[in-house]
């Protein structure tokens, strides 16, 4: 009953915002400036049966997910290295600061010069995700309970046991938050990079073409697809990371 109430509340909120959007579109009454949710839905339905649309979705999905995974794994790996070696921490520090501060557009242009546009979103996503995972993982590792590490030292616990018993429980909340944040950032930056670099058959390229022809309904439809994919991956990621905790509990 309570669940049903929550669902109704969420549905009412969604209807409120969609109605507001539709009202705004009706007030502006200019299809180049803004279209309502109904026209957006029609544009989306028109795109759905086309092979080009699905190729664009698949290409962007693969590249951005691959970039997310590579950036995430590298970030976690470098954070472990930095945790165990203060020297490496200092060596990585300017590199990570640079990755955080350099505008995405600069990366895009550099990657376009170095490697062309085919793998652009993969590189850019990697660069955006890496510092987020690195900083959060390192923060979690450095906050690890010193007393448990002492225990591990005197018991000569092997690294896999330390990882499972000490580091992962400590890291999990940091990793869940960082991975979900990074997932959203990956899609934003990945599609932005595709708009600038225009690799063929990508969501960014679809956006760019819609912009050229002032097809606002298509712009919003592609945006909605991007938001949905980002949301879906974020949910799957949350389930996977929390599922890891349940699996640990299941082993008890």
């Amino acid at each position, binding site marked *: 009953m309570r669940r049903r109430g929550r669902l109704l509340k969420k549905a009412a909120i969604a209807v409120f915002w969609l109605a507001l959007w539709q009202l705004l579109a009706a007030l502006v009454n200019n299809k180049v400036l803004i279209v309502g949710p109904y026209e957006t839905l029609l544009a989306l339905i028109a795109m759905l049966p086309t092979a080009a649309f699905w190729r664009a979705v698949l290409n962007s999905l693969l590249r951005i997910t691959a970039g997310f995974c590579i950036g995430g794994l590298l970030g976690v790996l470098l954070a472990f290295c930095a945790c165990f070696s203060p020297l490496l921490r200092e060596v990585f520090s300017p590199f990570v600061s640079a990755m955080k501060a350099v505008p995405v557009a600069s990366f895009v242009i550099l990657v376009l010069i170095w490697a062309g546009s085919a793998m652009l979103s993969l590189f850019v996503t990697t660069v955006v995700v890496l510092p987020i995972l690195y900083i959060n993982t390192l923060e979690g590792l450095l906050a690890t309970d010193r*007393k*448990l590490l*002492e*225990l*591990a*030292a*005197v*018991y*000569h*616990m092997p690294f896999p*046991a330390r990882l*499972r*018993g*000490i580091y992962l*429980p400590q890291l999990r909340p940091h990793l869940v938050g960082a991975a979900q944040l990074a997932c959203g950032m990956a899609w934003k930056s990945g599609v932005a990079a595709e708009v600038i670099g225009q690799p063929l058959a990508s969501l960014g390229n679809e956006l760019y073409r819609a912009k050229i022809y002032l097809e606002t309904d298509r712009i919003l439809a592609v945006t909605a697809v991007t938001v949905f994919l980002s949301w879906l991956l974020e949910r799957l990621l949350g389930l996977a990371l929390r599922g890891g*905790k349940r699996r*640990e*509990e299941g*082993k*008890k």
Partner: protein
Amino acid sequence: MTVDVRDVSKDYGTLRVLRGLSFRAEPGRPVAVTGPSGSGKTTLLRIVMGLESPDAGSVVFSGGPPKPRFGAVFQEDRLFEDFDAVTNLRLAAGSARREEIRAELLKLLPEDAVSKPVSSLSGGQRRRAAIVRAIISPGDVLIMDEPFAGLDAENTRLAMEYLRESSLSRPLILAVHEKDVPPWCERVSVE
């Protein structure tokens, strides 16, 4: 293996906590270090485990590996809170099978406490799990800092009996308050 504590001294600034302390612990000859709070019992155990360095003197291990492993009970329980007692022992204490660990835990813990996350156990149950963890570990030396803290009289008696039976093959050094000294231990005082 034997543990020789030789003339160990330790200061914290102007506070001298250990003064030329010497004793030997060996299998079948456990040592109970006693003394009032703040007298340096915990510091001594940390020095034996290599977690702190003495200002003078040394700790010598003979008849075993140069860097021995320890089965330790710390002042705090130091359990892995997300896991149950069996998994806690498996993680810290090596390759024993779950059933073996479970059987060992049941010597000191009730059946229902063995499979629950340790975060939901009572203070006394957590303490007993920490004692079993030290015993079941393949540590070359057993070190226990106030292992009976938080246990009632009956559980203290059971835990002492369990320790006496289970620690015969390894050196055992306990830090305890005067009232908790097991009668089968050699007594060493730090003042």
